């Protein structure tokens, strides 16, 4: 999962939105950790569950790691500054269904499902990724 994260982030840049879905414990945060640490080195990547958003200064753009599970209504996303971040930063969003109306159409969706002892990743959407 960490290695896949490292490969994935090499394909991404500012203004892109990645939505991560999957059950509790499927590995969403682990995937994000792989992405952030491959970009910024072995820094702390704490769970954003309680803080909602953790931001990171990348070499070329800001990276937002969001867990919007605790948001009550999509409009709260405005208050968090997500709309601006969707344009300027690379946003990695856990539990995106909580703010579904705000998610850009061209977002990349990654679903992580348990399969035996492993995980199955399904990626949909997003133009221009190779």
């Amino acid at each position: 999962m960490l290695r896949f994260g490292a490969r994935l982030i090499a394909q991404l840049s500012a203004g892109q939105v990645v939505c991560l879905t999957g059950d509790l414990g499927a590995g969403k945060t682990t995937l994000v950790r792989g992405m952030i640490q491959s970009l910024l080195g072995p820094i702390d990547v704490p769970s954003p569950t309680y803080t909602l958003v953790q931001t990171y200064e990348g070499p070329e753009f800001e990276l937002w790691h969001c867990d919007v599970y605790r948001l009550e209504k999509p409009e709260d996303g405005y208050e968090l500054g997500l709309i601006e971040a969707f344009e300027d930063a690379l946003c990695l969003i856990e539990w995106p269904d909580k703010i579904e109306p705000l998610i850009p159409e061209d977002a990349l969706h990654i679903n992580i499902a348990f399969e035996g002892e492993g995980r199955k990743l399904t990626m949909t959407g997003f133009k221009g990724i190779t």
Partner: protein
Amino acid sequence: MALTALKYTVQEKALILGIESSCDETAASVLRRQADGSFEILSSIIASQDEKHAPFGGVVPEIAARAHMQKLDAIIDRAVTDAAVEYDDLSAIAATSGPGLIGGVIAGLMGAKGLAMSLDIPLIAVNHLEGHAVSPKLAGECPFPYLLLLISGGHTQLLSVKGLGDYTRLGSTVDDAAGEAFDKSAKVMGLGFPGGPRVEKTAASGDPSAVKLPRPFKGKDHADFSFAGLKTAVARAYEASDKSDQANADLCASFQQAVCDVFDDRTRRAMALFRKDISAEIDSPQRFVVAGGVAANKKIRSSLEALCNAQNFTLLAPPLKFCTDNAAMIALAGAEHYALGNFDAMDVKARPRWPLDGESARHNPASGFGKKGPKS
């Protein structure tokens, strides 16, 4: 330090208003510090919200900074009134400026800035974790150095606390906090919020060896924690179980036992690292403080007691009102910085991430929130 902060001089006797709004509590406190360094908490107001949050199976965060701001005003007012002082008597304002929920932190910090400016007194930006680090002193005498285990919903850390501003992080979670593991496990099993007390209660009639669960990082050289894998294992075990009351009790008891074992193992490792960090003899008597909401769990507490006895540590467990989120600890940390003349400029930023062991980072955020954060 900015020039604007230099115009203030330190008074020997000081009244400090502390403001805490970094996560699910909004709180304010007034503390009086004497010339000899002794202090007295004159008031400590906390607007607890757990009951309000329960119907949602979790904490619904107040996102809007302005809503925080409104609540804050009333709570600050009560703290000042309860302390029987006037705003004009205050010597400085200390406010949490991270790490934490950014909307709350910004609101608290903005409120603090506004007050400091209008009263023309210094502002002190306090690291929330530093508040926890000094919080044992609120409960009474607790001289430096000590080993601190902070276990709450948002944090899990083992710190060597050698003095004010002198901390070494011996270990911390690489993913979820301990309290988060309790909350999410409770959620998976539909036990409700807050997860800690619910899991503990359900576990009471369960068999702690019934379900095989991992002990992440057990036996490792470092003193870090990981709870994401344990949470996943609980979710999978629950799916595979018959979901009866007894199965739930067994799973809760097994989960709680796994957490106890992890704390035992990781703290044991940290105790050795702590003695090394302060250059103490291998078996020398030392102090161990456990703080944070998760420390309320009786199983965890008794397991840590046994560990302390075996390792020649004296266990200090401050009453919960001091070791869960509160503003008195922020006022205390602020008062200590005040005495040293550590004031902050009005452009100090709120920071969602702010590791405690990086004193240089206090005024020079290397990886802070940056200038483009929301509402800054």
